[in-house]
C-alpha cells in the first residue's frame, strides 16, 4: 500500500469564469449560426426593384419600417451595460460592496432597458410571425437574443446576491457576469448590423 502525501484540496481554477467563457463561446456559435442561416436565406431571396435603392433582395417586405432609434438605443444600452459590469468587477476586486452593488444594479437596469427596447421594436414593427420567412425568422432570431439577455439578467441577480450576501468576497462570479455581458454586447452588435442595418 502506498500512502499519498496529505494536503489540502486545491481550489478549482476559476471554474465560473472558465465556464462562462465556454458558454459565451457556445453563444457566439448560436447567434453566429442563426445569422449565417439568415444571411443565406436573404441571399437566396429573389431580386426586386426599389425606387430609392435600385435592385435589392426581396427579403424584408417594403411596408415594414424598422424603428432604428430603438435599435440604436439598444446597442448603446448594451455598451453601457459593459461599462457598468466592468465597474462592478473593479469595485468587487477592491471589496467595495457599496459600489459593486450599485454597479450590478445599474447593469441590470440597463439590461432591462435593452430588453424594453426590444419589446418596443416588436410592437412597433407590426410584423406578424405567420406572414412569411422573414417574419418568422425575425422573431426566432430576436427572440433568442432576448432570451440570452434575460439569462444575463438572472445571472447578474444571482451574482449580486452571492457577492453582496456572502461574508467572503466572491469576485469570480462578478467577473464571469461581466464576461457574459461582453458576449451579449458583441452578439447584439452582429444582430444589429445584419438585421437592423443591412435589413
Amino acid at each position, binding site marked *: 500500500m502506498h500512502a499519498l*502525501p496529505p494536503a489540502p*484540496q486545491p481550489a478549482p481554477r476559476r471554474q465560473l469564469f472558465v465556464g462562462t467563457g465556454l458558454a459565451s463561446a457556445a453563444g457566439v456559435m448560436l447567434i453566429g449560426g442563426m445569422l449565417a442561416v439568415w444571411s443565406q*436565406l436573404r441571399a437566396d431571396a429573389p431580386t426586386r426593384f426599389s425606387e430609392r435603392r435600385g435592385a435589392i433582395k426581396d427579403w424584408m417586405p417594403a411596408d415594414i419600417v424598422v424603428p432604428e432609434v430603438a435599435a440604436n438605443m439598444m446597442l448603446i444600452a448594451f455598451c453601457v451595460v459593459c461599462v457598468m459590469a466592468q465597474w462592478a468587477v473593479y469595485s468587487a476586486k477592491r471589496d467595495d460592496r457599496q459600489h459593486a452593488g450599485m454597479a450590478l444594479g445599474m447593469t441590470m437596469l440597463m439590461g432591462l432597458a435593452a430588453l424594453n427596447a426590444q419589446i418596443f421594436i416588436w410592437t412597433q414593427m407590426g410584423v406578424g410571425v405567420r406572414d412569411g*420567412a422573414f417574419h418568422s425568422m425575425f422573431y426566432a432570431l430576436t427572440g433568442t437574443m432576448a432570451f440570452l439577455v434575460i439569462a444575463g439578467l438572472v445571472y447578474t441577480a444571482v451574482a449580486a446576491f452571492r457577492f453582496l450576501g456572502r461574508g467572503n468576497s466572491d469576485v469570480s462570479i462578478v467577473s464571469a457576469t461581466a464576461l457574459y455581458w461582453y458576449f451579449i454586447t458583441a452578439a447584439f452588435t452582429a444582430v444589429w448590423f445584419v438585421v437592423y442595418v443591412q435589413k
Partner: protein
Amino acid sequence: MTSIQTQSVPESASTSSVANWFTSADHKVVGRLFIGSGFVGFLGGLVLAVLVAFERIDAEGYQLLDKGAGSQVLAAARLLLTYGGVVPMVIGLVIAVVPLQLGSRSLAFSRTAASGFWMWLTGLGLAIASIIGNGGPGGGEAEMVDLYLASTVVMYLGLGMVALSVAVTALTSRAPGMGLLRAPMFSWASLVGAVTLLMALPALIGTTIYLYVDHRYARAGFGGNYGIGDWVGWSLSQPFTYVLAIPVLGFVLDMVPVMGRTRLAQRTAGNVAVGVVGVAVITAVVHSTVTLPWEGDGFFSGIGDKIADLLPFALLNLVPLLGLLGVLATALLTLKSAKPRVAAPLAFGVLGLLMILLGAASHVLYAIEDAGLRGTIYEAGSYVAVTFGTAMLAFGAVCYWGPKLWGRTISDKAAIPLALLAFLGTVLGSIPYMIAGFADQPAGALDEFVYGGPQEFWNLLTTAGFVLTLLSALAFVALAARSFTEGDAAGDDPWDGTTLEWATSSPPPADNFSDVIVVGSDHPLADMKNNSGKVG
C-alpha cells in the same frame, strides 16, 4: 498490483435508494445513468435498423412496416443509434472517468451535468414519442413535428450542459502538476470532444429554433416537415458523427500502453491527432451553416479553381481521416515492441478503431462529387461503420473502466468473442450498403427501387450484419449487467494502470480521493509505484 489508501467513505450514499439515483449529482452515478440509458437506446436503435434493413430486402413492397411509417422508422433508428445510444454511452464514460483521471474530487458544475442528463432523457423520449405519433422529419402530423423539433432542442441543450461541465472540469480541476498535455489521453480527448460539441450543438440549436418557429407559424422558408432533413440532417451524418468518436479515441491511446505494458509512443502526436479530428468537425459545422469564403467565385482567382475546390474537401474529409490515422499510428507504434495481453478492451478498441477508419475513408469517396454516390445508400454504409465502430470502442471502454466503476470484473473469455461478432456484424452492416451505393440504391428508400445487380443479396447481407451486431450488443449488455453485479471483485488496479483513476478504490468513494495527488509526469501512478509511494 498497487492500491492507494483512500478514505473509507462508502461508495456514494446516493446509490442506496432509487430516489437518490434521480437526485444524485455524483459524477459516477450520472455517468452510469448515461451508460445504462445508452445501452437501452443503442439496442432500440439496432432493432429499428434491423427492421429497416429487412424491409429493403424485398424492394417491391412493405413486409413488416406500414408504407407511411418507413421514413419515421428510418428517422427513429438514426436518432436512437446516435443520440440515444452512442452519445450517452460515450458521455457517460467521460463523466464517470475524467474526474478520476484528473485526480479531482468531483465534476465541475455537477448539478448542471445531472440536470443535463434528465434534459437529454426527456428530450429524447419526447422526440421518439413524436416520431411514433407521425412527427419527425417528413412526419404528417403537424403538432407532432413541432414537438419533435422542440424536444430535440431540449435534448441538445442537455448534452451541451454536460459538455460544458466536462470541459470546465478538464480545464480547471486537474491535480497539481498535471498540465493539459500531461493529462491522460482520454481526458484530453474528452476535452477536445466536449469543446467540439459545445461549438457544434449551438449551431444545431439555432437552426432547429428557426425550423420550429417556421414550421409552427409560417412554413415559408425551410420546406416544412420535409425540410428538416435538409437543414439539420448533417447532425446525423459524417463528418459530424466523428465528434462522438473523439473521446473514445483517447480511450484507445490510454488503454493500448497499459495492455502492452509499455509507455505511449509519440504522445504529442496522439494529442495532435485527436485535436485535428475536433478541428475538422468544427469546420464541418461551420460549413453546414455558411459557405466557406474560399468556395465563392473569385476568392482564389489568382491561383486557380482547383485549390478552391480542394480546400473544403480536404478540411472536411481528409483532415479527420488524417487524425484517425494518427491515432492508429500512435497505437501501433506503442505496440510495436510490446507483447500485449489479449484482453477485451484491446479487442474492442482495435476492431472498433478499424471500423471508424473504414467509415472515414469511405466518406472521402462519398464526398467526391464525380464518384456519383450522393443520394445513394453508400452514405448509410459509412454512417454504420463510424457509429457501430464508436459503439465498439465504448464497449471496450466499459470493459476497461467497468471494474473501476462497479468494482467487479468482466470476463475476457466471454467478451472477446462478442468483440469479434460485433466486428463481423459491422463489416456486414456497412460494406454491402457501400457496394449497393455504387449500384445506385437510393438513400432513404425502403421499397420501389430497382437497379442492376443482386440487390436482394446486398440488403440481405446488411440485415444479417445488423442482426449479428444486435445479438452481440444484447449479449454484451447482459454480460456487463451480470458481471458488474455478480462478477469477481476487481481490486483497485486490475490492469496495472499508470493513470490516477487506478489510484483509488474500486468502486471509488464519494469524493474519489481523500488526499491531493501531486503529479510529476504523464504516468503518475507508475511513478508512485516506482518510487514506493513518493509522488512526483
